[in-house]
């Protein structure tokens, strides 16, 4: 079984984000890109399935500005077999556009399964996998914390608002995973060296799809100041007194 893993380059959350003076948009200059954490779990799952003999080839695909290309090497060092990097320099792509580009790659590669993270840590939208599944007309399993490959289908456990749900997906399928599905490994030095030799196909977003312009326009971004100067209470009695006035 061939598996396609979609990984998003995101800004390392340890880097403080900046809002420009005119409140317009977040400044991405000189920031370091990492693999979106949820997508790291997606790669790890594919690699484990390959080690278990259930998967024959892992292709990792990523879309982003050229300075984010490094994340493809990281994915290859984790154990993906080859990479596809779609360069998109200008505007930040929205989930629908990403889904359209991934659909084209899916049609080209025809994997039996596409795995991605359930959301990204920057926009937190959690839409791309579902949109991709709908555009392809494939089955869908989201928020997955356990994945079992059977001979003709895939069984997944999904984390839902009031518990867990098990569904069966016919192939081909699109799956989005939670952090709980596995614990991603560290890439060993020898694997990092090997990754440099693995093939990477570099494509351009505008060559692949002419319909990727944004549908949502950001008018303004405002920083929210959350800091409070809280009152230090000595004991529970003081707390209850305060809360009695305010809420309970």
């Amino acid at each position, binding site marked *: 079984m061939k598996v396609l893993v979609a990984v998003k380059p995101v800004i390392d959350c340890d880097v403080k984000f900046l809002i420009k003076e005119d409140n317009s948009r977040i400044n991405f200059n000189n920031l370091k890109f990492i693999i979106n954490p949820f997508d790291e779990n997606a790669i790890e799952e594919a690699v484990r399935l390959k080690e278990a003999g259930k998967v024959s080839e892992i292709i990792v695909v990523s879309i982003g500005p050229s300075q984010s290309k490094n994340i493809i090497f990281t994915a290859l060092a984790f154990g993906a077999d080859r990479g596809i990097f779609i360069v998109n320099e200008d505007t930040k792509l929205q989930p629908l556009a990403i889904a359209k580009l991934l659909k084209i790659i899916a049609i080209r590669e025809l994997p039996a399964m596409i795995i991605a993270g359930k959301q990204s840590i920057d926009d937190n939208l959690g839409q791309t996998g579902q949109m991709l599944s709908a555009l392809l007309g494939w*089955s869908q399993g989201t928020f997955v914390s356990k994945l079992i490959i059977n001979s003709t289908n895939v069984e997944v456990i999904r984390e839902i608002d009031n518990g867990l749900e098990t569904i069966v997906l016919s192939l081909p399928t699109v799956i989005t995973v939670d952090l709980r599905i596995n614990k991603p490994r560290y890439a060993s030095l020898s694997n990092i060296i090997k990754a440099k030799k693995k093939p990477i196909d570099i494509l351009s977003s505008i060559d692949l799809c002419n319909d990727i312009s944004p549908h949502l326009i950001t008018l303004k971004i405002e920083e929210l100041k959350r800091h409070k100067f809280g009152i230090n*209470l000595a004991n529970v009695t003081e707390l209850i007194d305060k809360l009695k006035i305010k*809420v309970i």
Partner: protein
Amino acid sequence: MSALVIAEHNNITLEPTTLNTITAAKQLDEDIHILIAGHMIYQIADIATKIDSVTKVLLADNIIYAHGLAEPLSSLITEIGHNYHAILASATTHSKNVLPRVAALFDVAQISDVSNIISNDTFIRQIYTGKALEILKSKDNIKIITVRSSSFKEAKNTGGHAIIETVSNKNYSLCSSFLSRQINKSRRPELITSKIIISGGRGIGSIENFKLLEVVADKLGAAVGATRAAVDSGFATTDMQIGQSGKIVSPELYIAVAISGAPQHIAGISDSKIIVAINKDKDAPIISIADYFIVGDLYQILPELVTELNK
């Protein structure tokens, strides 16, 4: 044109968050229709006809919708949805599963987790784990919106006189099937709508200690939440996780016990009115967003809290 709200339910009762979504929809249109897709859902349909401002209940009763599977449900919504300028649902795992598909099938964007509606095409949502607000404008003719329930009041479930119309969809593929569901039933309030929440972090240390939180919760009529680390430690179930990758809450009172206050957790609680932190570390980041805090050991403070509340 009207606005369409997708009801969330378990085939027997309507999820209260649907009522919050109706309030959001009212800011976009005076004429609101509600879609109830499921199996043997007549009881809910009847309840829905009485919701304030709802003029039409669209009833899709078919075994294929019984478990809310994304593929048939999204094709149903897409078939009936072109009559509407806005389609809304609460930002729950149920609609996060279904609505992006609907958006893609309409070739429009989804506007996720909206906390404020400025006009028919302009919305506010939080980004960067709650560190910033984004004001955005949609260029699409159909707006697909998920709503942050806690930002909108519940609509009244009386006073409405909606008509019922049955709908069905012709084209759907059954490429997935439902096997089982393990529901964690709780007698406590739902996290996302609860007025008071007490949450425990990794520092709670054991399932037994976590039970102490439940005792306090029951005294306060509160819901119990957890951090991802507490869930991963096995103290709490996944549905109790609050934060960036769990539930977003905004109670009147949030009590954080042995929670350090990682940005991913804060993302889920920053709209709480009053935050109380109980932590043995006076430098824990949670302190900087707390209204009140007690620096001390939970092994001492929690039992004291129980005794004090018993008075």
